[in-house]
C-alpha cells in the first residue's frame, strides 16, 4: 500500500470511498434482513454478500492503483473482447429466460458488466481524441456505432435496462466533452422520431421542429439531408412494420421491450413493493421488523427490490439517508471529474458516474412504482456478486483518476 500512502492527502477522495463503503455495508445489512424468511435457499446469503463486498473492495483498490493511461491504451482490445463475450453469451443456454450469464463455475459472469466499462473507456478515448480536430465521423458516427453494437447485443438477450445504460454512457460522455446542445438534439432525433410515431400529428410536429432546427442552426446540407431522410425512414417504416405483424408477434415485441422481472407477475411485485415502503411511514418498522418480505415477493426481495425492504424497515428517514449517500457519492465523483486535467480520465469518470446515477434512478424508481420493471439492481446494495464487484471496481477507477487528477 506504499503507493496509497504516497498519494494520500488532498488527492485521495476518502469521502467518495466512504460513501461507497457505507452503501455496501447498508447492502449487507439489508440483504441479511430481507432473507430472514422461511426459505432455506436464502439462508446465509448475507455472508456471501459480505464476501462479494470484500472482493469488490479489493477490486476497488487494485483499480485505483492502475494509472488511467493503461485504460486508454487497452480501450480497443478490451472493447472487442467484451463484444465477443456478448456474442458468445447469446449462443449459451438460456438462464432464467434470458441469455445474460456465462457460468464460470463459482461465478455467473455477466458480459454486459464488462461491456459497460469497456464502452466507457473507448468512448472516452474517442471523445478525447476527437476533441479538437474531428469531422462528423470522428465526432459522432464512430462513437454512435461503438455505443450501438453492445446496446443492440444486450437488447436481444433481452435486457432492456442494461441496454439503455449504454445510451446513458454515451449521453454522459458526449455531454461532458462539451458537445453543443443542438448536436445532442440531432443525435437523439432518430430515437425521438421513433417515439413520436405513436400518432401522426406528434410525428409531423416532431419533423417540423427538426426542419426548423436545421434552418435555425444553418446545418450544412450534406449533414441535414441524410439525417432528415433517416428520421423520415424511421418514422414511416415503424408503423408499417408494426401493422404488418400478427397479434402474437406484437405481444412478443411488447414483452421484449418490457420483460420485467416476471412479465405476468410484475404488477404484483410493484404493488407489494409500494405496500412495503408505504407502510414503513416516517420511521419504519425497525431493522429486521419488516412484515411484507414474508409475503410472496420472491425472488426479488433481496436483489432488485431490496430498496423496498429498506423503505419498510427504516422509513422515510432511511430512504433519505440512502438517497443522501448516493447524492454525496455522485457529488464527490463530479468534483473529481471536474478537476481532472486529462481529457480521457475526466470523460471516463463522467461515463462511470452517469452509469451509476442512471442505475440508482431506474432501480429506486421501479420499487416506488414510478418506472417500469426492468431487471436493474440497486448499485452497492442489491444482492449479487457481479453487480457489487463491478460497481466497486468502477468506483476504484474513479478514485484512481482522482489520485492523478493533475496529470495530463
Amino acid at each position, binding site marked *: 500500500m506504499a503507493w496509497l500512502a504516497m498519494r494520500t492527502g488532498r488527492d485521495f477522495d476518502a469521502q467518495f470511498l466512504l460513501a461507497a463503503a457505507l452503501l455496501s455495508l447498508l447492502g449487507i445489512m439489508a440483504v441479511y434482513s430481507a432473507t430472514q424468511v422461511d426459505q432455506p435457499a436464502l439462508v446465509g446469503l448475507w455472508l456471501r454478500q459480505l464476501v462479494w463486498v470484500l472482493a469488490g473492495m479489493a477490486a476497488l483498490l487494485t483499480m485505483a492503483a492502475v494509472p488511467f493511461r493503461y485504460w486508454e491504451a487497452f480501450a480497443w482490445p478490451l472493447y472487442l473482447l467484451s463484444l465477443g463475450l456478448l456474442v458468445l453469451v447469446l449462443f449459451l443456454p438460456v438462464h432464467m429466460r434470458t441469455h445474460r450469464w456465462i457460468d464460470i463455475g463459482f461465478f455467473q459472469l455477466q458480459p454486459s458488466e464488462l461491456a459497460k466499462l469497456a464502452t466507457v473507456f473507448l468512448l472516452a478515448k474517442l471523445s478525447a481524441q476527437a476533441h479538437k480536430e474531428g469531422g462528423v465521423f470522428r465526432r459522432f458516427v464512430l462513437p454512435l456505432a461503438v455505443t450501438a453494437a453492445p446496446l443492440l447485443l444486450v437488447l436481444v438477450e433481452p435486457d432492456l435496462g442494461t441496454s439503455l445504460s449504454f445510451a446513458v454512457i454515451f449521453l454522459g460522455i458526449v455531454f461532458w466533452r462539451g458537445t453543443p446542445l443542438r448536436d445532442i438534439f440531432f443525435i437523439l432525433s432518430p430515437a425521438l422520431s421513433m417515439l413520436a410515431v405513436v400518432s401522426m400529428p406528434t410525428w409531423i410536429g416532431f419533423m417540423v421542429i427538426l426542419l426548423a432546427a436545421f434552418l435555425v442552426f444553418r446545418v450544412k446540407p450534406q449533414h441535414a439531408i441524410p439525417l432528415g431522410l433517416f428520421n423520415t425512414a424511421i418514422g414511416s417504416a415503424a408503423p408499417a412494420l408494426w401493422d404488418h405483424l400478427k397479434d402474437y408477434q406484437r405481444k412478443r415485441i411488447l414483452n421484449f421491450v418490457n420483460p420485467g422481472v416476471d412479465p405476468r407477475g410484475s404488477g404484483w411485485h410493484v404493488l407489494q413493493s*409500494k405496500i412495503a415502503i408505504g407502510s414503513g411511514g416516517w420511521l419504519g418498522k425497525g431493522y429486521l421488523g419488516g412484515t411484507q418480505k414474508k409475503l410472496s415477493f420472491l425472488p426479488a426481495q433481496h436483489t432488485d427490490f431490496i430498496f423496498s425492504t429498506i423503505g419498510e424497515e427504516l422509513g422515510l428517514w432511511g430512504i433519505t439517508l440512502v438517497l443522501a449517500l448516493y447524492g454525496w457519492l455522485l457529488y464527490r465523483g463530479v468534483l473529481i471529474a471536474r478537476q481532472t486535467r486529462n481529457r480521457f480520465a475526466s470523460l471516463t469518470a463522467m461515463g462511470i458516474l452517469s452509469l451509476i446515477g442512471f442505475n440508482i434512478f431506474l432501480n429506486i424508481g421501479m420499487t416506488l412504482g414510478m418506472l417500469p420493471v426492468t431487471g436493474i439492481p440497486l448499485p452497492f446494495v442489491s444482492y449479487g456478486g457481479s453487480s457489487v464487484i463491478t460497481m466497486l471496481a468502477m468506483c476504484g477507477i474513479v478514485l484512481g483518476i482522482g489520485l492523478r487528477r493533475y496529470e495530463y
Partner: protein
Amino acid sequence: MTQEIGSRERTFFVLLLWTVALLLLLLRGAQLQVLQYGRYHSLSQQNRLRKIDLAAPRGLIISQDSVIIAESRPGFDLVLVSATDWQAPVRSAARLLGLDSLALVAVVSTQRQLFPKDPVVLIKDLPPPLLARVEEHLDELPGLRVEIESLRKANFGTLGSHLIGYTGQIGLDEYAKHKDFGYRYGDYIGKGSLERQYENVLRGSDGYEFFEVDARGRDRGTPEALEPVEAVPGATLRLSIDWRLQAAAESLFAPGQSGAVVAIEPGSGRILALVSRPNFDPNIFASGIRADVWNALAGDPDYPLWDRAIRSAYPPGSTFKVVTAAAALEETLATEHTYMPHPCLGKLPIGNRVYKCWLKEGHGALDLHQAMVHSCDIYFYQLGMMLNVDRQAQWARRMGLGKPSGVDLPLEHAGLIPDKDWYEKHFGRGSWRGGVAANMAIGQGEVLVTPLQLATLYAAIGNDGVLWRPHLLLRAETADGEVIRREMRVFDRLPLSPATVAALKSMLWGVVNEEGGTGGAARIAGIDVAGKTGTAQNPHGKDHSWFAGFAPRERPAIAVAVIVENAGHGSDVAAPIAGQIMASYLARHGLTPRPPTAVAEE
C-alpha cells in the same frame, strides 16, 4: 460555443439534474410513506388484500371436419376466502343449501390444516337453482364468494370418449409433481388420452385480479389502479379425426358389444376414427366424479374406461398371415404360386401334436395366394415351420409390430412379438420348439397386437410399403392464431420389395373379392377393397372377430382395423363392420383415388 471538457456550466447542469432526480425519488417516497401511509399501513396488515384467480378456459378440441368435440363451460363454486371466523358463515351456507353442516365444517378444517391460507371450495359447480339462492343471500355470508371456474364439456357425451379422455382435479401426489409448473391443488388436469397428451397445449394460463376485504372479510372492490391480468385460453387442438366417420363407426357396435376400430389415412398416417367400446361419458368427471359412480365404472367387468384401440393387445389371428407371407416371399421360401409339401386335409401332425385347419373338411391343394384368400391354416403352419420362431419375429418387428406405433396418445401398448429368447425366459429351455412356430404363423399363441398397430401395418401395405406414423394432431393454434404445435409427419419404409408388396395386395384383394374368400362381407360395389379376416382364440370365452384392410386397393384413401370381442369368426362380424365404415367414408369423399396429401401443413 465552448468545447471545454467539464465546463463550469456543464458541471452545474449535471449536479442539478442529479439533485432533481434524487429529490423526485424522495418526494415519491414521502408520498407513499407520509401522505398515503394510512392505506398502505392497512394493506400491509395480514389478509386485507386478496388475489383471486381468473380461470383460463381449456382449449377446444376440433375434428378435421370442424366439429367441436370438447369445449369449456363456466362452473360456479361457493368458496370460503376468509381465513378466520369461518365457522358461522359455513354453517349458514349449509343451512341455506340443505347440507349437513357438521360434515361441511369437517371438510373445511381438514383442508385448512393442509393449506392454511388457501381458499376452500365448499360446493363445486352449483346447479342454477342453488346458485340463485346463494347469490340472493351472499350478503349474509361474510367471507364466502361465488367464484367461476372453467369446466370441461364433451359435446357428444360418450361418443369419442376414449379419444378425448377426461379432466380431473389434481390429486395430492400429482400436485407434488406439478406445483413447480404453475398448478395449484385442485386445478384441473388432463387425465387420459388427448386431454393428457396435450395438457401443456390445452391448458391456458390463469389470470388474476385483486380485491380488498374489510376486517369482516367483505369485498371492498379492486384496490387502486391495479390492473387484472387476463386469463389466456388454452390452444385449440385440430384433429385428423373425421367426426362423421367416428360417429358412423361407433354406431355399428351393438349396445353391450366390446371392441375397437382404428381408421387411418394411409398416405399420411392421419387417424380418421378411433373407437373403443364400451365407452363412458367424460362429462361425469367434469366437476369431480362421485365415489359411487367411479366405483361402478372402475368395477365394470367390461372395462368401459379402458381404451381398447391402443391399450389392449389381442392375438392377431389370421390377420398376422400377411407377416408370414411377406417373410416367406422376402426370404424366397415361396412365391405367390408356390404349393406346400402337404395339401390341406383339415389337419396336420407336427411333432406329437395334431394341428387343425379352421375348415374341418380341408381346402385341398392350394398355393400361397389361395391359402391367403381362404385363410388356410395348414398351408401357413408349414410356412411357419420353415421360417421358425425367430425369423417370423424378426419380420414382424421390421413391419412395425411388437413396439409402440408412436401415436400421440399416452399409455400405448407395445403388443408382443415373442422370439426364442422370450420363450426360453418365460416358458423354459427349448419351449419354442415343436409347433410354436406353426401356431405363430396363424397369429395364435403368444403374439399380441393392438388394433392401432394392425391398422398402421395394413395402411402401410396399402400405401405400397411406406409406413406413416399414426397421429391425431393436425395443429394446435392459440387464440391469436399462432400455431404452437404442428402435425407430426414421420414415415418409415417396410423392408419389403415392391414385388412382395404387390403380391400381398393381390392376395388381400382376393380375400375380399374372389369367390370363397373369407372377407367377402367387406366387399363394396365398384371399389377394390383389400383386407384380411382374423379369428383370435380367446381362452376366456368366444373368439374375437378381426378384420384389417384398406380401400381402394391402389392409392387407398382409408385403412381400417376392426375387432369385436367374443363375436366369433372375423368373416361374420368384423368384416361387414369394416366394409360399412370404408363405404361410408369413400362415399362421402368421392370414389376417385385421392392424390397423396401435401407434404406439410400450411
